[in-house]
Structure formats: C-alpha cells, structure tokens
C-alpha cells in the first residue's frame, strides 16, 4: 500500500473533525474491502481515519419495537445477537451469509452500507425493511440513502452512526452467491411490514440495490410465492459478467424472490 497518515479517533466528533480537516481522507470501518484495496494500491488516500475505537458506534439495542444497530457493529455480532434473532431473524440470517468467518468478525454494517457495493447483502436488508440510517448530521430513510453503484446520500464529512430497523411481520432473505467471491450475485429480501410489502433486490442491479415494485404490488393483496408467478423481470439495467449475464440474473431475481417468500412463510 501507499503511505498515508493514520488516525484513530476516540469519539465521533473527533472523527468528523478529522474528516473535515483532511481533504483526501478516507474512513475505515472494518476494513474488509478497504484494506485489500489499499494493499493492491488501488487507492491512495492522504489520511485514513480508523473508526474502530469509537465506542458510541457499536452495539445492538431494541428500540421502538425494532432494532438499532451501531455502525461499527460486526456482521458476526449481528448474526449472533439474541435481540436481532428474536426481533428480526431474517436480518441475523442475512448477516450470517456475508463473506466468511474472518470477514464477519471484522466487517461492519456501517462500512458495508457506506461503501454500497452493488453485490453487498446489507443494502438489500435496509431497503427491504425500510430502515433508517442515522448519521452524524441527520436521519436518512433507506430509500433515499442508496443513490447508485458505490454511491450514497452521505456528504463528504458525514458519518453513519447507526441503522434503525423496524420490526416486520414477516421477512426473509434468499441469496444466490457468486460462485467465486460469494458476494451476492442475486439476493432478494422480502418483508411484510405495517407499512406494506417491500421487496429489495441486491447483487443484480447496475445501480446497486433496488426495490422490485411490481412484485410489491402483486404481493400487497396476496402474500405468497404464487402471487409473482405472472411477473417477468426485465434484464435491462441488470449486471452482466462472466458469472451471470443479465438474463440469468433476471431469472434468478424471480426465483430468489419466490424462495424468500416461501421461507418467510
């Protein structure tokens, strides 16, 4: 990796100040994407601000019937959390499918959603559950947070503090992993919530995770796999690579959605 200045602030306020003071600074959460990027010399930040020492960014609490998860909470902690397993078991199950044990023991929720890799799992959960992202400045609904591939609504000096997930009536995530990387090639998160049905697709879209509104409408009055039988998924706008062309991904979106619905019950 190239040389950079390393900072490890102890408070969110200090982290925000460091970010504001250094133009080419980059935040590091769990580092599971960023450290390999640095090691391959694909990034050249002036400063790296390690969020690992900020206690206020960690932890899982039950709040307003749902769950609030600190940005620096590890995937493994979410997967094993008794609270998450009780309140939103589908979210714990999704976290357990991320990467491998090493990644799950270091990778974080905040790092994942701030990076917004189009093949990441968490964006599907945030969109699917209608979560709210709490940052150092404001609250951002998930529907407005993810703005494109590796793009979010975060401002340059804004840091994710936590994510609040409301409790769904029913939810499940079905993932088709990339055969090599085990990232999501197609992942579908379905949820039946007080505010309606949500179907979020990750891994497939060229612009990152998105909501499959046609399926949501079809399921609104009939929460069952059969309800989406008549739908077809348009491959335009979907990713195409050596592992899956857009038409295969389009097919898998529907299959995974039906499997998620079957699992959600």
């Amino acid at each position, binding site marked *: *990796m190239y040389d950079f200045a390393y900072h490890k602030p102890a408070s969110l306020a200090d982290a925000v100040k460091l970010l504001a003071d250094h133009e080419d600074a980059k935040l590091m959460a769990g580092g599971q994407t960023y450290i390999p990027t640095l090691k391959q010399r694909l990034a050249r930040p002036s400063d790296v601000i390690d969020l690992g020492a900020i206690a206020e960014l960690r932890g899982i609490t039950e709040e307003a019937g749902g769950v609030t998860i600190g940005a620096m909470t590890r995937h493994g902690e979410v997967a094993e959390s008794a609270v998450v397993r009780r309140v939103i078991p589908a979210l714990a199950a999704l976290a357990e499918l991320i990467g491998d044990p090493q990644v799950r023991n270091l990778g974080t929720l905040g790092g994942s959603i701030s990076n917004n890799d189009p093949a990441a799992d968490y964006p599907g959960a945030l969109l699917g559950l209608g979560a709210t992202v709490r940052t150092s400045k404001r609250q951002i609904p998930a529907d407005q947070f993810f703005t494109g591939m590796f793009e979010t609504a975060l401002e340059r000096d804004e840091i994710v503090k936590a994510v609040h997930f409301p409790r769904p009536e029913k939810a499940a995530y079905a993932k088709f992993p990339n055969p*090599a990387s085990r990232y999501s090639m197609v992942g579908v998160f379905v949820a039946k919530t007080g505010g309606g049905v949500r179907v979020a697709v990750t891994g497939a879209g060229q612009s990152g995770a998105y909501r499959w509104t046609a399926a949501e409408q079809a399921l609104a009055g009939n929460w069952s796999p059969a309800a989406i039988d008549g739908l077809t998924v348009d491959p335009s706008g979907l990713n195409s690579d050596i592992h899956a062309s857009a038409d295969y991904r389009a097919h898998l979106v529907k299959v995974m959605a039906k499997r998620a619905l079957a699992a959600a019950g």
Partner: protein
Amino acid sequence: MGRFAVGQPLRRKEDERLVTGGGSYTDDLQVAGALHAAFVRSPHAHADILAIDTATARAMPGVAAVLTAADCDAAGLGPLPCRALPRHNRDGRPMPATERPVLARRRVRHVGDPVALVVAETMAQARDAAEAVEVTYAPRPAVTDPVAALRPGAPELWPEAPGNLALDWEAGDAAAVDRLLAAAHHVTRVELVNNRVVPNPLEPRGCIATYDAATQSYTLRTGGQGVHSMQSVLADEVLKVPKERLRVVQADVGGGFGMKIFVFPEYPGCLLAARLTGRPVRWIAERQESFLSDSHGRDHVTTVEIATDADGRMIALRASAVANLGAYLSQFGPFIPTDAGAKMYAGVYRFAAVHFQVRLAYTNTVPLDAYRGAGRPEAAYAVERAVDATARELGLDPAELRRRNFIPPEAMPYRTALQTTYDSGEFARLLDAALERADVAGFAARKAAARRLGRLLGLGIAYYVEQCAGGADETARIVVGGDGKVRLFIGTQSNGQGHATAYAQILADALGVPFADIETIQGDTALIPTGRGTGGSRSVPVGGVAAQRAATALIDKGKVLAAEALEAAAADVAFADGVYRVLGTDREIGLVAVARLAGPDGLDAAAAWQPAIATFPNGCHVCEISIDAETGVPRIERYTVVDDFGTVINPLLVEGQVHGGVGQGIGQALYEETVYDPASGQLLTGSFMDYAMPRAAGVPAIDFSMIPVPCRTNPMGMKGAGEAGAIGAPPAVINGLVDALAHLGVRHVDMPATPQRLWRLLQAHRATA
C-alpha cells in the same frame, strides 16, 4: 513391527509439526540483510518494448538495483530452456525452439510477462520503484484462444511458428483408424473443451537467492518438487556455472501440483540480483501475481470419435485436439499434450486401433505446463466422455458398454493399440464393486424423489487408467547412526503428500527399527547428490523401491561387521527384526550396535532403482449429481471411488491423495474457469473474486475403497496414487450431469458446468423440447 508396517493407515509423522505452526515455508525463512524484489510485468498481452527508462526508479529511496533484459544479457544469462525438445511433427520436421528470456527482450507476449526487476531495502520501496520504471510499449494484436490462434490471419507470436502452430503431432495408426471408422456400424462423435485451470497451491511461489562472492557460489531457497532438476536447469543452461556453484534448497512446500517442478524467470532474476548487489534477495508472489506468472494447466479443445460394431464392440477411437502452449515453451510445455498422456487414449478398452493427433498453438497467455495428471486427465476425459456418449447413442447402459469392451484380466499383460503394455488390471471387478457401493440399484428411486423436489438427478460413471512412475531412476541412501537414528536421503520432494511417513513405514519394515527413529532428508543439493524429484505420482512407487533396496544393501553391508563381531561366517548370520543372529544360536547383535562398529559416521548404504516401464493405476468413479431445475445449481449427492493402486504403503495417505485429487477434479468440472478477454488479452479471472475454487461445501463425502491388483513391473507391486483423483473425477461428474439432462436431449455439457451454463442448457433444451 506390525503397527508401523507397510499397509498400515498410520497418521502422518509430519502433521504435528505442520499443524502446530512448525512448518518452514519459503516466506518463513529469515535471511539477514535481505533485499526485497518486485517485478515489473507487462500490462499488455502482446506488445513491442520500445524503451525502458529505469533512471527514476534507480534514484528512489532504498533501491539497490533495477534489472532489465540488458542486464541479463550483460551477465550472460541464458534463456529458460524447454526440456521437452527435441520433438518432431507428424511429417518429421523438428519442432522449432523459441526463446524465453529471463526478462522480456524487445517483445512481451502475455499479461504478466516480466520486464524488469527492482530490488530495494523494503517491499514497499521495491514496489514504489517498480511503478516508477517507465516502459514504452507499442501494443500488437493478441490472441488467447488456441483454436482462434490457428485460424488464418490470427496475430502471430513467433516467426519460428507460422500461424502460431508450434507442433503438429500424432500417435497411433491413422490409416487403420480411418478404415475402421469408415466401415463402422456406428460412429459417435463428441466435441469437448478441457478447460484451462490455474494450479493455485496454498503456498504461492517465492524464492530467496543468495550469492557468496568468496566462493562465487549461489544458493536458491524455493518451494519446489525436487532440487536437482532446478539445479541442472539453472546452473547448466541459465547461469552457466558448474553445478557445485549452485545449491538449491527446498524446505516445506505448500502444494505444487506439477507447477512447482519448473524454473520460472523470477528465480534466475533474483539470483542475478543477489550477485550484482552482494545481498540476499527475497521474492514471494502475491496471489494475483501467481495467476499471471504460474504455469497454467489443460486448455485443450478435442474432437473424439468412437466406432462401434453391431454388437456394441468399440473398435476404434480417433481423437483430434488443439492444445494451448501459451506464449512461451515452458520447461515441459510441449510434452504435456503429447507424450505425457497420448498412450492413454486407448483407455481400458480393446480398441483395434487408436489415433491421437494434437496441434500445439502459441497464444498470448501464461505458458501452460503440467498440472496434476498432466496429459492423462485430458485423455481420460476425452475417452470416458466419448464412451458414455457411445452408450447413450447405442441405447446401452454405460456400465454394460464398458464391461463388454474392457481388456479382461486374463489378457494381461496387454499391449494396447497405442503400443503400450498394461501389466495388470481387473476393470470389470472394480466397476462392479463401485456400482454396488454407489447403490446404483437404488438410483431410479432416488431420481424420482429428487424430481419431486425440483432436482434433476444423474448418475455418471468413469473408468480411468493412467500411467505413472515410468522412466527415471531414483537413488536412496540410508545412514544408521550410532545414536540409533536412521536417516534416509532421497531426491524426491514432498509438497504435502507425506513422503516421510511412507518412507519410514518401508524402512521400519525392512530394517526392523522404530518408526519414530526414521527421518527423511530431502530438498538440498548439498546433502543429496542426485534425484529426480516429485511428479507423475512417482515418489513412493520409485523412491520407495530405491529405499527398500538401499535397506537391503545396508543389511548386507552390516552383515560383514556383524559376522566379525559374532565371530561367525557371514553366511551363517541372518538378519531379522533389526537383529543379526548366528543361525541356530542365541548369539546376536542389533543393527545399531553394528552401526557403532562401522565407525563414527555409522553404517550407510545407497541403492538406485529405475523402472523399465510405467505403472498403470486405474479405477472407477461414480458420481451422483443433481441439478436445481430452476437455478441450474449442481450438487454432488454421492461420490464413490474404487481404485487399484496396486500395493499400498499407507492407505490413509492414499485416501488423502484421492480426496484432494477428486476435489481438484470437481473444481475443474464445476467451478474453475480461466477467462481471458479475447479483445485485450487481459486475464479476467485473475483473483479469487472471479476464479472459483472448490470449497469444502462443494466437495462431498467420498466413499473410497481399493481393490489392489499388485503391479507386475514394480518390485513392491505399487502403482502410484498421487494424481488419480483429478483424472477420474471430471468425466464422472460431467457424465452425471449429461445423464441428468439427457431426457431433454442434452448430449454434452462443457466444463466448468457452472450454474449459468447449466441453466442456459436447460433453457435451450426446454424451449426445443
């Protein structure tokens, strides 16, 4: 003795050390004062080098040297040799050699081709300076696919090889095969791709090079599969120094799979850098660098035809292949698609005639060379796919067709249509055992049950034969010390197989000494004068016989001393269970006591053994595999292997070899795909993010058993086991997938059978069904 005897499933001597972190791999070796090497590699698949400016890099902090082809030329380094020459075309013309320089001279021919070498005080400094080396390229059109490379108008790599055709080679009787095919009752034809794979050992390549100016001697420490061939290639042909002035040391090795046999450009590059700087130089490949610089395997496109008569007798086989050589001739490169596997195109069948033709193509890709099985997997895949397709076309049970055409045990030794003699083999017996263990009788019920769950179930059979352990000799030297320790010096090189355990079992049996007291010493040209290394499943079948013979020589040598000590005639002294005893008396002396009498260095003896002909391990794989009809995802449900490896020293080690080999074979069949972008020649699958390796969850529990039919040409009856799993698995897996899809009209599935490929087949055939 029994507990440690030959045939016992002993746990490996090596494991406690290795699994508790006591291993010593290349990157673990600490050499004081070492510089770090970084290579500047071509970003282009094919380009002329117009200029290399190293001035900026040389002036950067910590940089000790920047080397290019000019420095290699000034130092008199020779190119890396191809030891598979001379070879001849079908028409008798010799295959032209092409030159593979240590660092690219005037032209780069694949992405990753090394152009310059930077050595600096730290790794980061070496990499910073490597980025500052300015190379001016003039890109040329590139070709990466071997079939495309042979088409008229393809970009050419070498003036010596017009049309990129390096060699047009054949084995067998073309005229006889043509005649039999023309007159046949039925001809089955299959076109298939044997996909290119990247070996990916757990431990990447690396080396530590040192030079001692006082003695003008080099030392190379590296992971490999034998020190002596590396010493010979480097000293004789590249460095051009007497062998005594290059010591090669190989400590623990984390997997080789054939690839680590060879000398790669980085090794002489680092040796030269060590000489020029007067400092040790270390280089360890990163994984992406391994993808771009380790030799790859396979990459054949083959058409196979089998002629049958009206009774379902297979009478002739014709195989015609195009094989990719890559950009340069690797050390054994052209041997692998030709002699390494050609004889195996006869399979285990009584063909009256067989013909195999292969055209070797240069392409703008990493050079290809041996990968576990090296030529025999390509043959086994082609033959066993075509046999299966024949059965399907004739409406015969694939097992029945095989049974009808097997070479029977009573015909052994059997000279095949390709003029090689199998010494032994009971193919029908192994096939029947495998089918029984696989519960083929219950398959139909399982298939119906799977269908109700949306899965298409198939049953695939493959019966492979391969050739091992032929040709080269091996020498073993045994020293019994006065301290009771027994040391075996041998030039084979374990890279994970457990040689120290197998050899110790052989010597514990032969010498009657404790298993725990036997140590195997390998991997150092300063300690072992000769050796042929590990490859072709030869170490234990050849090295083991040499070790046993050395033990016999040692016993005979000790008998003279024992007789003297016992005041008896040597003829009256017998050796058993570690003790010399005067016949008919209770007067005795132990081997260790005799070793003490021999002098301070103990008792030693050496012996060599050279096999006259290869051995022919063979066996049956049965793969039951299902496909998710909605997604195309395959899943292996049952996997059964029955092998004939002849006499086995340690069945536990052998089973481990089969598990690993089957895992690699499943990897090739279902996961591993090496994709070059045809337009740019870039390797698209250059990391584990895109190159899918088999994982634990994808490799099923394997029902493994053996029916040993002792080899008649090996004094200990051994046939070899190291590569067999990787040879039998691909055809078994693919035959299973074809069986699962046959009702839709699918006749063939190419490797790797990824979910996308299977889904596409399902779509296409459902649409037409």
